[in-house]
């Protein structure tokens, strides 16, 4: 119990000293291009953001905005061929972008854990749960099989699996989706990473299970002081559990700031649009029930503001390139951010 309290204090201090402490992860100008046979497309362009130690940061955006690509880039899990990544990703004083494959192996699973969207297919069907967690431990620590197995049991107990000793000898197929996602979380956290990337960890689950898994992630994060990068479509979940959020649109970060501020008054029309499409809003006269149009594909990016074709506040200056500019504690990529007062999500 003492240990747990200690850790909670550490993380509390980290969160309080957000602005002064060095960020845990600092991504600068991350761009990713794919070679599509005869030309290069760039689905991720100059993405920059920070994550502080112990902080829970949400990334929202419609499908195809580059959220998963951002996560995969951080861990160096992009396809090996036909893919180019540029930029800088400082993590605990080390530039992940400059690490080679064997250097990245020491980071993956050990200092940065990752959970994927599909718990049904993310676990190897022909190995037991215990094997899969144990091998993760043994890939990073010189411990005996026995010791690694003990850690696996502890990790399973920590994610609330009943009778973890039985669970280690079970195959994934005999577990429900929620249980598998708990196993994924146990596996991602078993080496006590400093950062956990959760790419839509609850999307594939029942609504009732979603809340449980979310609560579990946040609880484990605060207890161990692990920062969480939480990717989702669900702004409601971000509102409940994240301190800070990033809005991504068409491969760019368009807004970045404290969740409370953004909910009150979004800085970018796209964030406002996402907030407006939240189902919980009672009064239906909201101007943006959903955002008209679709995310442009990487082949037909608008030359200026990428959101302009769908934006109801568009003006001539929007046809020029937009920069991500600081606005207090926030960053917004919109040339009209100082003129506009956008509707937030009123409770």
């Amino acid at each position, binding site marked *: 119990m003492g240990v747990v309290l200690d850790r909670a204090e550490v993380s509390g201090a980290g969160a309080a000293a957000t602005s002064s402490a060095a960020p845990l992860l600092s991504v600068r100008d991350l761009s990713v291009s794919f070679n599509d046979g005869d030309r290069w497309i760039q689905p991720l362009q100059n993405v920059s953001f920070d994550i502080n130690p112990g902080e829970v940061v949400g990334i929202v955006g419609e499908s195809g905005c580059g959220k998963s690509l951002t996560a995969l880039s951080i861990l160096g899990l992009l396809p090996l061929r036909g893919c180019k990544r540029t930029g800088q990703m400082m993590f605990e004083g080390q530039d992940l972008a400059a690490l080679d494959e064997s250097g990245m192996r020491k980071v993956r699973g050990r200092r940065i854990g990752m959970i994927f969207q599909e718990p049904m297919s993310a676990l*190897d069907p022909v190995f037991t749960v215990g094997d899969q967690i144990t091998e993760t431990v043994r890939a990073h620590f010189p411990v005996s099989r026995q010791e690694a197995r003990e850690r696996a049991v502890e990790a399973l107990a920590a994610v609330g699996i009943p009778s973890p000793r039985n669970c280690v000898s079970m195959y994934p197929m005999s577990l429900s989706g929620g249980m598998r996602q708990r196993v994924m979380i146990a596996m991602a956290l078993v080496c006590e990473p400093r950062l956990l990337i959760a790419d839509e960890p609850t999307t594939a689950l029942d609504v009732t299970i979603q809340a449980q898994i979310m609560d579990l992630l946040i609880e484990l994060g605060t207890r161990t002081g692990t920062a969480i990068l939480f990717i989702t479509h669900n702004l409601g979940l971000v509102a409940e559990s994240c301190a800070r959020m990033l809005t991504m649109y068409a491969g760019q970060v368009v807004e970045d700031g404290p969740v409370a501020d953004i909910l009150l008054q979004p800085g970018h029309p796209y964030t406002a649009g996402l907030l407006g499409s939240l189902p919980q809003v009672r009064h239906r006269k909201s101007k943006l029930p959903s955002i008209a149009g679709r995310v442009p594909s990487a082949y037909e990016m608008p030359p200026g503001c990428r959101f302009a074709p769908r934006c109801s506040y568009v003006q001539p200056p929007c046809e020029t390139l937009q920069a991500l500019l600081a606005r207090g504690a926030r960053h917004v990529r919109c040339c009209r951010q100082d003129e506009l007062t956008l509707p937030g999500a009123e409770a």
Partner: protein
Amino acid sequence: MSRLPALIGRRLWQLLPIIIFATFVVFSLLQLVPGDPAVTLAGDYASKERIEEIRKLYGLDQPLIVQYGVWLLHAVKGDLGKSLLSSAPVIELIAQRLPNTILIATYSLIIATLIGVPLGVLAATRVGSRIDTLVTSVASLGVALPSFWLAIILVANLSLGLHLFPATGAKPLLVDPKGALLSATLPAVALAVGVIAELARQVRSALIEVLSSQHYRTLRAKGLSPMSMLWKHGLRNVSVTLLTLLGLQVNRLFSGAVVIEAVFAIPGAGSLVAYSAINKDFPVVQGVVLVLVVIVIAVNLAVDIFNALLDPRAASS
């Protein structure tokens, strides 16, 4: 794992009808072969009465179903009868001939696995590369090549040309292991080529599917080394495909052996069954078919058991 005994029990029950069906079909087909065994048995210049006598003696005058029933009854007691031609006990004939066939089949299965599986892995881990294209096209060719044609090419070049291997015959493995393996090499290689091609193709496509799967990406995200990913997780995931395929290849090797044994003049079960069928020596044909069916079913049962051990999904289906 508690499903395993049930699996074995179920398989053993299936064994019975399959054996009866297979032997009965072969028995009936033998009747279509031209010629009369009674005439052959009676020898040259036998009188009509003598032929009839022989026919009665061997029960050849009975209806088909009765003849089959009598054979089956004896077979159940472990008596496979005697050859109509040589009057040697069928069991003895099989004991003499079968080891040669099993040697060739096992030998070629080992060659095929040692070459086919690595080729498939090589191609799957380099999809679209020149190596992959080479393996894929050579495999398509290998599947289509008839083994007897290959056998003739091999004999012409390596035996008659270079004298590296004996062109014909077989040696007993226990008495002369080196000679036995040497004589079995060319037939085994001729049979293996098709199996290599099949293995390489199937392992390649099964492995490509695994390598692009979500759970394989999880392994990378956990920080495992590429070697442990490929040889531990990759291979274990394709092991069911591989074992099932190997089981099927055993059937294929036994049927291929008939032709290959003829080309290499090997006294094996294949040439025995071919010769006996032509001469309507039905006790021998029946005996060999029975033994082969049992072997094939036993191999498939072993495959099922290993699959169930290797993959929990196979155990439940």
